[in-house]
């Protein structure tokens, strides 16, 4: 029975050719995406018209930042250079620090830095807006406290020159305090999954989609045989329904496991993606479960069109709810509760946990 089912699968040459072509295109696509993912991300231009030690320190917030340092490239130039480079799409953000910025900051005169963000990439624009927001929080803290000391001392009748001296002293002290903010924190680490890039996250999510689609195909084949009365004939020949089901399940699941394992192995061997053995085993088990579920759905539906609609939508729903598109951490609590019942959730969890 199993042999006959395998024969049916491999007799469709056109389908096999199409499948081979699609696998080659998919693997090539994965390589292309992963290879393209290594590179600088954000380019910031700075026109420092103030050119003081203080303004230099402020600029260092961007290029000496622990997190963004590797992602951000800071280029310096004149206002015109910045405008020109921005116009050519080479900069994601440029800052223009006005002349006399430091002096005005110390003398508590608001003279804002001009920041122009390239909004054509919304994700970068959001990131840069947040970066500037935290940066302005630091400046506000420094400014308010410098001004308070200045006001208190003026009110208490201190000499103007003394007030000015103290103001300069506190300004530098607070700016250095702000720049040394990392010392406020003790960082502890737990052993947990980390370091997965976004592209890889979506590749894993894509693998789970393939697993679900493998089940869909098994179900479709089973439905077509049912509608073509093949099952009725087999039963009349004395073959049990359970045997028909098991043989089809083994044939289809087996083929898909071999195909997917081959594709994953090629990708792993090329060193582009790290897919742990545990996750591969889970993938194989998922293919079997997926085939069972979709074959059962096919057993209850009488129209191919109905099956196609239901199964495709079910796959989309499972992927969305399981954190295949928006990571679980950012999903509402109600969705997280539902996600636990989806294979996508467990697959991604297992992959991340095993890394």
């Amino acid at each position, binding site marked *: 029975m199993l042999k006959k089912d395998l024969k049916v699968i491999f007799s469709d040459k*056109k*389908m096999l050719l*199409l499948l081979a072509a699609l696998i080659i295109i998919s693997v090539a696509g994965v390589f292309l*995406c992963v290879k393209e*993912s290594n590179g600088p*991300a954000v380019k910031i231009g700075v026109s420092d018209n103030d050119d003081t030690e203080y303004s230099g320190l402020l600029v260092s917030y961007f290029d000496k930042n*622990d*997190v963004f340092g590797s992602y951000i490239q800071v280029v310096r130039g004149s206002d015109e250079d910045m405008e020109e480079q921005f*116009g*050519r799409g080479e900069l994601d953000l440029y800052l223009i620090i006005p002349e006399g910025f430091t002096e005005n900051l110390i003398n508590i005169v608001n003279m804002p830095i001009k*920041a122009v*963000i390239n909004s054509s990439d*919304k*994700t970068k624009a*959001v990131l840069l*807006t947040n970066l*500037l927001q*935290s*940066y302005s*929080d630091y400046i*506000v*803290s420094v400014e*308010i*406290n410098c*001004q*308070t*000391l200045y006001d*208190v*001392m003026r009110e208490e009748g*201190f000499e103007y020159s*003394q007030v000015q001296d103290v103001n300069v*002293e*506190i300004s530098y*002290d*607070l700016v250095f*305090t*702000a720049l040394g903010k990392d010392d*406020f*924190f003790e960082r*502890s*680490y*737990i052993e*947990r999954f980390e370091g997965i*890039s976004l592209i890889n996250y979506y590749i894993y999510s894509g693998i789970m*989609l*393939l697993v679900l*689609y493998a089940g869909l*195909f098994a179900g479709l084949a089973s439905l077509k045989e049912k509608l073509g009365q093949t099952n009725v004939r087999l039963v009349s020949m004395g073959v049990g329904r359970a045997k028909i089901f098991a043989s089809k399940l083994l044939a289809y699941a087996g083929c898909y496991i071999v195909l997917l394992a081959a594709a994953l192995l090629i990708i792993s061997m090329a060193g582009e993606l790290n897919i742990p053995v545990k996750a591969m085993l889970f993938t194989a088990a998922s293919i079997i479960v997926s085939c069972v579920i979709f074959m059962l759905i096919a057993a209850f539906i009488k129209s191919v*069109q109905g099956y*196609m*609609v*239901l199964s495709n*939508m*079910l796959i989309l*729903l499972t992927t*969305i709810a399981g954190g295949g598109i928006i990571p679980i*951490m*950012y999903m*509402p609590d109600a*969705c997280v509760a539902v996600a636990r019942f989806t294979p996508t959730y467990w697959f991604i969890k297992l992959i991340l946990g095993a890394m």
Partner: protein
Amino acid sequence: MNRLFLRIKICIKDITACICYLVSAVVVLCLLLGLDSVSEERSAVPIGLINDDLSSESERLRESIMNNDAFYVYEGSRELLNEKLLEGYINSIVIIKEDYGLRIRKGNTDEIVEIISGEDNKVSVVVGDIIAGSMLYDVCAEKGYRLYLKQEGNAGLSRDEYQKYILKTADRPDFQFGFELEYRDANDGKIDETSVTNGMIYKQMIAGMFAMLLSLIAFVSCNGICLEYEAGTRRRLKNLPNSKLLMNTADFFGIYLYTLPLGLAGGYLLAGLKGMTIAAIYLLLLCAVCLLLSNLLKKTDAYQLAGAVLIIALGVCGFVSVFSGLVGGSDFLNYTPNALFIENFIK
């Protein structure tokens, strides 16, 4: 025109398919609307917060973290938050240490807050950067107060009295430093009036999911053509005195009109009238592609296989395009149908 109505009739006649289509599409749409309603709130980084100190400084920091839009804060016991961290539901745990207030007053601010996260977690460093902004207020206040006390001839204000001065200064509107911020599209040099918020990334993902829903609708609706090929109906139709072009045009518009109501409804609910237009254009394109595929492949299995790969590929390209600028992805991703859909949908 008659053929067009016949095509719509064929689509509607399959009751099982229609019910499956409506129920599942409505469920997916409801899920998307639910996600859309929490987009601003859930775009924030989820963190756990423990305040082990009882001082006014620690309470101020706690309030500031709780009210910060960048964070979605969970408070609870160490065990509960640890579990959430291990499960991957929160990014990091922030612990305000027991002697936080006292150490700020003593001027010893090293390691007064603990951040627990997974190793190599870059977001947790950003979490620290944002929290530092809130901590700086008290740290700077204490430094200022100590310097004030050092001045000979000071009036000897108490810490609380000095704090009142700070609050007075903080209330002055001219002391809210801000960047002169401008958003400009480098492609056309025009100033962008769209408000840039954290929820925008979430909204892009929702737009991507809606695009996938639309492509699935177009895809499954064109499957009927393959079924007709398999049943031999198309061969019979060829014998009739009809032009092939006319037949395909009628099929195309029939299927397009069948899928359009759901696209329009979803587009309107998620992004208003503009959303409807974008959904309608996208459906037009996808219906054409799927119809072409079904006519080329003629078999349900082959059509399902090619369609699945097409939908996954378009979907992945769309989602990756959202972050391609950050991860250095290829520019071609930005010109794929789903990427263009996302870009225009959230504008």
